[in-house]
């Protein structure tokens, strides 16, 4: 850029400090709110995902119910079976170890475990709670879901080799009035009953899980289902990037006939809510930035109206239209830079304050954090919006016809 243009722009800025500050303040407020609101949604999304992944893997493989299909494939022809039903009740995954070794070869898979789920009834005296029993290798399960972190009492290692041990959700333990070391009787929908010793109690913070879920060893679960030691009904896998799970799901689906489902499909409702929230917050914060841009537009427009004689004389003495655009874009940029820098500071302050707001419950302090990438993004959007807002008045100035000014 020409030094003279820069000098003119700076002189305009310096001699009109008040207008410059007003314009910059608009950007400051717009940008800080943009940064703050996006940090809020990002922080909340992260929190929500972390909550989800406490008990959900990125990818789940299981055998879905099969429906009987009409024998005739042709449209408008007569169907031979008209009363469609579930054909086979067995949820067994055949040769799970082979399937797991195939899945593990995929480069994007980080962790695979198998699990045996069954419907369980927890009984103590006359009290009964219904829920789901999960037969797992607790060490592998812990490495995937970090369950140890959520143990209220007891330890997961106590389950490791105890075929008669069980880890209960805190809600179940509370309802039945039991503690670690107590025995409870557990029965399954297949009529198998067992007396198990409570070796631990966990609390994930989600009542749906805490009131229903328990962990036992795989072989114990197989006995509840009256199945052999090769029976497995679910395989869970984690991937390198949970945001990409849909793509991985599609790739895995090509390797097996069993149903492959990613967490986004399982939690479609949560995903829909969070994307709605993101769009809403995004729209609001962007609207505020646009208002800030109008501030810049306004102030540059009025500067240009006041400086129209100066623009005419500059053009008469040989400054090109592009020089005039440069001068006013530079002014917009200076306003934008001042405003954006202050906006980052103000936005960070808001985030800092919010970090110290205690929400309570399983959330604790508000889940919001400083993210470099989001700060960069806000800064760039702030500058871009400023340049965009500055361009139109600058173009208007560049198109000033000096003759019409001199002849007034």
């Amino acid at each position, binding site marked *: 850029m020409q030094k003279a243009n820069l000098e003119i722009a700076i*002189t305009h800025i310096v001699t009109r400090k008040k207008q410059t500050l007003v314009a910059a303040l608009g950007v400051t407020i717009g940008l800080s709110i943009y940064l703050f609101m996006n940090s809020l949604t990002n922080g909340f999304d992260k929190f929500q995902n972390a909550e989800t992944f406490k008990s959900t893997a990125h990818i789940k493989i299981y055998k879905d119910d099969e429906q009987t299909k009409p024998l005739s494939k042709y449209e408008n022809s007569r169907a031979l079976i008209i009363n469609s039903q579930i054909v086979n009740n067995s949820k067994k995954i055949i040769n799970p170890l082979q399937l797991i070794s195939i899945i593990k070869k995929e480069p994007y898979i980080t962790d695979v475990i198998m699990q045996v789920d069954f419907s369980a009834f927890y009984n103590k005296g006359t009290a009964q709670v219904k829920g789901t029993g999960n037969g797992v290798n607790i060490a592998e399960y812990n490495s995937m879901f970090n369950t140890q972190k959520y143990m209220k009492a007891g330890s997961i290692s106590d389950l490791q080799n105890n075929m008669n041990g069980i880890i209960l959700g805190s809600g179940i333990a509370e309802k039945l009035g039991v503690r670690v070391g107590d025995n409870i009787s557990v029965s399954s929908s297949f009529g198998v009953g067992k007396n198990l010793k409570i070796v631990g109690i966990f609390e994930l913070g989600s009542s749906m899980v805490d009131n229903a879920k328990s962990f036992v060893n795989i072989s114990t679960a197989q006995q509840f289902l009256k199945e052999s030691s090769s029976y497995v009904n679910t395989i869970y896998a984690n991937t390198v990037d949970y945001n990409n799970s849909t793509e991985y799901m599609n790739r895995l689906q090509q390797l097996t006939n069993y149903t492959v489902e990613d967490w986004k499909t399982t939690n479609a409702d949560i995903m829909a809510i969070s994307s709605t929230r993101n769009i809403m917050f995004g729209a609001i914060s962007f609207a505020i930035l646009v208002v800030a841009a109008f501030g810049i537009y306004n102030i540059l427009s009025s500067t240009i109206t006041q400086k129209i*004689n*100066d623009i005419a004389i500059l*053009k*008469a*003495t*040989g400054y090109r239209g592009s020089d005039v655009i440069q001068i006013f874009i530079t002014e917009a940029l200076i306003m934008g830079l001042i405003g954006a820098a202050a906006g980052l500071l103000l936005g960070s302050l808001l985030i800092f304050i919010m970090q110290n707001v205690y929400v309570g419950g399983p959330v604790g302090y508000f889940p919001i954090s400083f993210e470099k990438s989001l700060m960069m993004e806000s800064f760039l959007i702030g500058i871009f919006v400023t340049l965009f807002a500055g361009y139109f008045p600058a173009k208007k100035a560049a198109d000033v016809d000096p003759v019409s000014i001199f*002849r007034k």
Partner: protein
Amino acid sequence: MKEIVLKTKNISKYFYDPVQFQVLNDISFNVYKGEFLTLVGKSGSGKSTLLYCLSTMDTDYTGELDILGDKITGQKPNELADIRNKSIGFIFQFHYLLPEFSSLKNVMLPALKLGKYSPKEIEERAYHKLEILGVEDQALKPANKLSGGQQQRVSIARSLINDPDIIMCDEPTGNLDSRNTQIVFEIFQKITHDFGQTIIAVTHDLDFANKSDRTIELADGKIVATHLN
């Protein structure tokens, strides 16, 4: 034969608003190096319109304009800006200095755009021009703190900063008292006769015109008389 610096061939121009009206009608003349030329005529005779066509700022005319042997008509806005920067200086009735800048900076601006000299040299040259015009003591004052006569002298210094071949003036003394008019006239004499630069000035001040080298009189968009003074 004197060297021609500016030449017009059959320049005509129309105004369309509010009704079609021919403001310049077939104007052809030559301007020579070192000449002090004045354009006179009644209000509405087209003299200012002609000056702005010569200045390259108004391009909406028919005919042809040559400056320093190059055809100007039909050149692009950026090329015209460069020609104005390098070869033409402007002086206006209302001095049109940039109010936030010092006198010195105002004089320097066209030279900074040209970029032929370093900023340091430009500053020295600008100071020297202010000296020629006798306002060097006002160099560091903001332009809007100067009197009318001083402002006009600063704007003359600005028109001279790039040593242009032609200096165009629109009523340069229209806003000045007789003492300052005399000063400006003497400066113009010096510019043309001592420095060999050409001045084309529009004026309605007949005394001023009569003291110039040559006067072209316009009426209804036509040249009606040329006087050698």
